[in-house]
């Protein structure tokens, strides 16, 4: 089984994205504008180099507004705390993490080899923060660290595959996310995407929450007509059982496995996103439509409301709460 290491990570990013590889005092990085870096960190749980002990990531479920498809309630997710919005990009910006919402960022792959990867990367972070004091033109928070844990199954790179799938479909005009829970039993798909055929430009769902910082989505997809779902695997190639759980909900038209290498599928009703020998992302599509029209319609209505919530999170808390109360 091929695993993605730091070198491969950089090459995959070079081949499959519009981002440049650049040399920095900390090594070769992927250069991104702040909004793209935010989406990358959100999808992959990568951390800003703001602190060596427990650096910040916008990922790890903090922006989960609800944990149940078809339902939006204040206590189900992580974003609300009583009658307050606890976590949102706006709140983070107001709380001192303004560095996430400005300038150019550098994604640095960090490969840890020891059995104590947290201690290992903590020491690296401490050294790097110290070293960057020699470069007054660069802030440590310009760096986003993508940890690659070689002692973990699949080098812990499942979320990077999810990001790649998200990026690929965003570029093709889809709204993408990797943290939308269906339910406790069905779980959280590693990748979901939605499409309004009247809209050409795609976006990461969380980009909607970056409007307050001047990042505009030109056209929010309101008339969703299609959705797809994916299950990512590194360290294994068996994804079908979990993918079937998602497809059986009737919410999705098509389903894909996301793998680091090609696999001959034993069935024709699912597709595959994989990486070939030249590091190109390859999409093997499927014509089988798994949707249940009535169930999917309800799912799309819910998703549209979710997008409205995210938009409102650019403003004051009361407006969001009023909206949530009105749609319950």
């Amino acid at each position: 089984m091929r695993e993605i290491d730091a070198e491969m990570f950089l090459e995959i990013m070079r081949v499959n994205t519009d981002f440049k590889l650049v040399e920095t005092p900390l090594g070769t990085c992927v250069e991104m504008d702040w909004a793209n870096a935010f989406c990358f960190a959100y999808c992959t749980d990568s951390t800003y180099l703001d602190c060596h002990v427990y650096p910040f990531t916008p990922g790890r479920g903090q922006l989960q507004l609800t944990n149940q498809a078809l339902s939006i309630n204040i206590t189900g997710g992580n974003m609300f705390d009583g009658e307050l919005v606890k976590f949102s990009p706006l709140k983070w910006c107001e709380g001192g993490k303004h560095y996430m919402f400005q300038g150019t960022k550098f994604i640095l792959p960090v490969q840890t080899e020891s059995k104590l990867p947290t201690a290992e990367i903590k020491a690296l972070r401490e050294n790097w923060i110290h070293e960057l004091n020699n470069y007054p033109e660069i802030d440590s928070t310009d760096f986003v660290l993508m940890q690659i844990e070689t002692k973990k199954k699949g080098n812990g790179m499942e979320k990077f595959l999810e990001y790649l799938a998200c990026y690929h479909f965003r570029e093709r005009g889809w709204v993408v996310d990797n943290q939308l829970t269906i339910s406790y039993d069905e779980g959280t798909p590693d990748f979901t995407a939605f499409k309004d055929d009247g809209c050409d430009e795609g976006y990461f769902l969380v980009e909607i929450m970056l409007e307050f910082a001047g990042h505009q989505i030109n056209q929010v997809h309101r008339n969703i007509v299609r959705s797809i779902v994916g299950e990512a695997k590194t360290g294994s190639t068996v994804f079908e059982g979990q993918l079937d759980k998602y497809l059986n909900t009737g919410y999705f038209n098509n389903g894909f496995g996301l793998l680091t290498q090609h696999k001959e599928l034993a069935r024709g009703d699912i597709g595959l996103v994989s990486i070939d020998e030249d590091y190109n992302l390859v999409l093997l599509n499927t014509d089988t439509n798994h949707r249940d029209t009535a169930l999917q319609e309800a799912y799309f209505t819910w998703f549209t409301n979710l997008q409205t919530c995210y938009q409102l999170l650019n403003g004051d808390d009361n407006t969001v709460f009023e909206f949530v109360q009105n749609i319950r």
Partner: protein
Amino acid sequence: MVADSDELLKRELIDEVGIQITSEGGDDIYLRIFPDGSAEDQLPWDLGGLTFKHRGLSFGSNDAAYFIVEGGIEKPIMALELTDALNRGSRGNAQYQRFHHALGSVRNGVIGVYYLKEGDNEVQPDLYKMALSAWDIHETPYIISQDFDEIKTLLKLWSHHPTPQYQAHLNSIKKNMQTIFDEAFERRYGSDWSVFSRKRSTIIHDSFIIKYSGRWIKNFTDGSQRAGHIAVGEMYLSLYLFPNKKLYYLWPKMTEDEVKYLNQTKANDKEWSLLSQENRVTIMTRDNIRNLPREVVRDLEAVSHLPGKGEALKIYNRCIKFIVSGLRDGSLSIF
């Protein structure tokens, strides 16, 4: 159903207490913490983790710990278990399940904090009494808290040689915990342990108590069930509410052979180790009940591999009523 809250609580700890604190005495206090998904918290403290061992028993891992550095060695001074259970539909035993996590540190002379973020439900008052007992027995503070400010203040006042201010703050925390328990105990049980025992599946004797429960073997062999955690929580509830008594933990749906089987197959299981190796605890089964009539044994056998619902629950309830009555009036015994 709710989203995972680990990151949420760790972020709150960092924002409200901090990753580095300098105490009023000038000591630098640091934070050891791991991101969600890391397994390093399962390692013992000395190997870089957040788990504490005591007399060969390994307790649950904590979410974070504050430490000082002495001679290049990281020495823990406070371990914290954090939960958002009160916002996640937990009214009862899910709160007890995590009690043993911070208990491991307390048994090692390190302040333990079990932080339950304020939410829709209330903290079970018993938790305060359990912690107070642990505090007294192990002569180390075990704090049930819903307030990061009081934790931060404690760290600010911390010193190698406790100051009167530090001691006063600790006393205030302890007094508050005692008051919460006393008021709830009066409200719920009229401050009467015999009322408590009737309502809480407990039989109280002079030197021991019997805690009975409908555990069955599948609770411990099926990984999807959380019953092992629940059983550990109930055990520590009984142990620390009755700190001077021996605990006989009675599971009439199980047999001695099944317990032996678990001893063999679950030797390395953290929860089973705590249940089977705690000093003051002996697990008892229906095989240990003397004079139990044959027909009651037959009924228990019939339901021993069935979940506690429907007809099986009715039969079990009939049996346990008979057993409890017998153990109370002396017509049955477990010795």
